[in-house]
Structure formats: C-alpha cells, structure tokens
C-alpha cells in the first residue's frame, strides 16, 4: 500500500513535469510521453509488480486527463510496465541503453495501438503519413527524454528501496 502511494506521487510529479514541458515549449514541438517512460523505468528498476501498478496508475491518470478511449492507455502502459519488469533480471540498472530503447519501443507500440483505434472507425487514415508526422517524432522525443528521466527515476527508486530488504527474491519483487 505504501508502495502504491509512492507510485501515485511519482505519477503526479511526472504529470507535472509533462505539463511544465508543454507550457514552456512551443506547440509545434512534439512532447515526449513521460508517463510511459515512468512505467517502463519503474518496471525495469523495481520489478514486474511495481511496473504493473505504475503502468496501471499512470495509464488511468493519462486517460482521466487526456485521451479518447478510457482504459486503453491503462492497458498498454500496464503491459509495458510488466514486460519491462521481465527485463529487470536480465540487465543491470546502470545500463541506460536498455530502458531508453525499451521506452522508445513501447512508445512505438502505443502509437500503433492508437493508430489502430483511429483506423477502425475511419479507413481513410493513411499509415505512411501518420508514421512520418506523428509516430516517429513522438518516439524520437520519448527516447531523448527517457535519458534524463530514467536517471531521475533510478535515483528515486534507490531511495524507495533503501528501507527494503536487500536480497532479491523473484522478478515479481515487492
């Protein structure tokens, strides 16, 4: 429960960061998907269960504030957190390439899901055009933003773990 409260706080802080970014950067620049970076990073740093809850909470929050289909973002972010959690065992958390690239990959997947949700009602939407103007800039911006954000989350996660047991038991951690 305490962990969930910490996660909610993290989601709020990330959302604040996203809003600040949106307010200070001109509209024509694309904004990175910071809540997705959060979900992936938490999964990678703290295991599958934390990733799952972070993804779910971040996704619900995203759906509350923005978005069209309620619950879709929660689903995608949750699985992003879980799948990143599986990576937890495979890589050192110091290896920054993995979470950054996986954030980019899951952002791409999320955009594809959104494209499908746009395509189903209206078949005239062209994939090539969307890819060039919407999806790829978004993925690129997310990858760029993931670098500093991951470092911040890593520092935070170390503080969160400071009062926990040191031995790791399973990838499904705390």
């Amino acid at each position, binding site marked *: 429960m305490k962990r969930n409260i910490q996660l909610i706080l993290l989601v709020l802080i990330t959302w604040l960061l996203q809003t600040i970014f949106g307010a*200070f950067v001109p509209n024509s620049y694309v904004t990175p*998907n910071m809540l997705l970076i959060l979900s992936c990073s938490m999964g990678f740093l703290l295991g599958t269960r934390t990733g799952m809850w972070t993804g*779910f909470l971040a996704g619900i929050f995203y759906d*509350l504030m*923005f978005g069209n289909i309620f619950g879709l973002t929660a689903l995608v972010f949750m699985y992003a957190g879980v799948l990143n959690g599986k990576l937890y065992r495979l890589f050192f958390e110091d290896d920054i390439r993995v979470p950054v690239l996986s954030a980019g990959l899951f952002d791409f997947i999320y955009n594809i899901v959104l494209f499908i949700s746009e395509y189903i009602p209206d078949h005239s939407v062209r994939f090539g055009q969307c890819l060039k103007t919407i999806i790829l800039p978004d993925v690129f911006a997310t990858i760029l933003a993931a670098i500093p954000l991951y470092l911040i989350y890593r520092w935070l996660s170390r503080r969160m773990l400071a009062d926990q047991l040191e031995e790791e038991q399973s990838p499904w951690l705390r």
Partner: protein
Amino acid sequence: MNDKKDPRHKKNRFTLAVLTVVCAAMILLGLSEAFPIRAVRNVAGTILSPLQTGISRAGRWIDSQQTDARTAEELSAENDALKKKVSYLEEQNTLLSENSNELDQLRSLYQLDKDYSDYDKVAADVISKDPSRWYDVFTINKGTNAGIETGMNVITDGGLVGLVTETGSTWAKVRSIIDDESRVSASVLDESGNCIISGDLSLISEGKLRLSQLNADVNVSAGDRIVTSSISDRYLPGILIGYVDSIEEDTNNLTKNGYIIPAVNFEQITDVFVILTKKETGDTSGTNATPETAAQDGETVTGTSTGDTGTASDTTTENGTDNAADPGTDNNATDTENTGTGNNTNAAPDNSTGTQNGTDTGNGAAEG
C-alpha cells in the same frame, strides 16, 4: 527460492489478469457510454486544473519578462509610434461607425440575424494541450461555472477554433477544427457554394484542413474566404474558418475538393472566446457530449441536407424543416428564421432540397 517464488508469482499473475479485465471493461463501457466516465473526469480535472492554470501562467509570465526587458529609449519611441497610430485609428473608427449604422439599418431591412460579434462571449485561457499528436484537443480554464456547455463554439480574434466537447465545473475541453474528427459545414464567402471542412490526421502537422463536397459549378479560387454555413447544426453562421489554398475537381466531375489554410494559428493559441449561444437544433440537448463527438461522421452528399451530422435525429429534422435557420436563443423572433439567417453566407439555394425556399428573396439581394 522456487517455493518462495510460487505463491507470490501466482498472486501477481492473478492481479495482472484482474487488472487486464478491469481495463478491458473500462474500454468497453467507455465506448458504449454505459459508465459515467465523464463524472470521474470532471472530478479529476477540477482538482488538477488549478495546477495546470498555475503552470501555464508561470510560463507566460516568464515569456513576458523576456519581452519586457527593453530599454527606456525603445519604449519611448514605441510610445510615440503608438500614439500616432491611435489617432489614425480614431479617425477610421468614426468613419466606420457611420457605415455600421447604415449596415444595421440594411440588416434590419432584410431581417438578417446579428453578426456573431454581438453574441455573448466568455474569455478563457488555454491551460493544457493533449500531448499526443493524434488529437488536437486542449483544455481551457473556464467551465460550467462560467456558463459553458458542451457544443458551444470557440473562437479567437482570427476565426473559428473549435467546439466544446467536455466540461467540468472549472474547466472545459475544446476539440479544434484541425482534429481528425472535426467536420464543419461551411460556405464560400460571396458565392453560393456549401462544402465540408474537415480535419485530417495527415494534415494536422501541416496545419491544413480538407475541403470537400463543393459543387463543381461554384467558382472558387485560392485566397477565397471560407466561413461557417448557416445550415450547420453545430456552428453559428458566418464565423471565418480560413482561406482556400488549392482546389481541384473530383473524378466524378460533380464536386470539387481542396485544402484550406485556417485563419487561426493553431500552434500558438493561448486565449480563446467561448460563444455562450448555442446553435439550436430541433432536439436541444445540452449534455450530449459523447454522442455528438462520436457521431461526427461524414456529411451526406450535396443536394440533400448538408451540415454536421449530429445524431441521426438531427439530420432528419434538417431535411424536413428550416432547421438550418435556427439561430441562437438571444436572437430575434422566429419570423426571421424563414427569411434567412447568416449575414454573409448564402444558404445555398442550389444546395437545399427546396426546404429553404423562403430564403431566396431575403438572401439573394442581401448577398454582397
């Protein structure tokens, strides 16, 4: 380690499955509108919108600090130039007020409706924008407490911005016309051609709009102004949308299509006005947010009822009655409806099915 792992493993797998089902249920319920998601979003938005407002104000304050850092000399020179401009403008203003009086007289002569600049408006600031580029939806800092309802038109000084799609007590969401789901029934100014202006995903980044369903007989060229049509059942008439960028004939040789450059710069919207008058249709329902947005499908072909298709009942009323001629609530008596609405749009006689026959006499002559 394995025996310690198994029960937790199972428990977490179970939680994942439960949460997946919860998400899927929310998606389905949200799509079928059985669940009052709007209520939940209202609460969340109301709690968090002050934060968003604060941040956007801070951003703008910093911006203004930078622009204010100029020397006293520059300011004094600017002051002089502005004074000259003011006296010039005062002259122009006097001339224009005379014209405006004459215009009012002519208007009442032809019993036309008021200009949209006379409608009640409330100013609002943009406090946040949907971060993904799939949608062009932004949030403003006024809501139902200020009298804003879904379906109200949103404009800036330049022209039409969009439509209110969701409201909370202290905030509202506006879908701009360049969003993929937007469809506006429009007319070419000075001509008798109705068309559809729609947003398009592939054009969002270029900031252009698509024009379609324009009758091939209509003479249109680049630079022509496009305004909201009086037969739209969602938008008040006569609001400037943009300028024609390019036009070409369809393969069927019956209609034309093209691109529009919107009059509003959507990349830099900070302040908007919400017109508090709604375009009344046969079935007035102030809260049909999601049905309206969900059913913003393509228009029907010219010749029959054009105009934004709201719910199914909206289109049928347009066919049968002078629905397009329903002005907002604070406009004149019902007699004016039959003799034409909209100041500078011709309710396309070539486009109606004859239900708007009453408009011909009034509008034909008034069209400038």
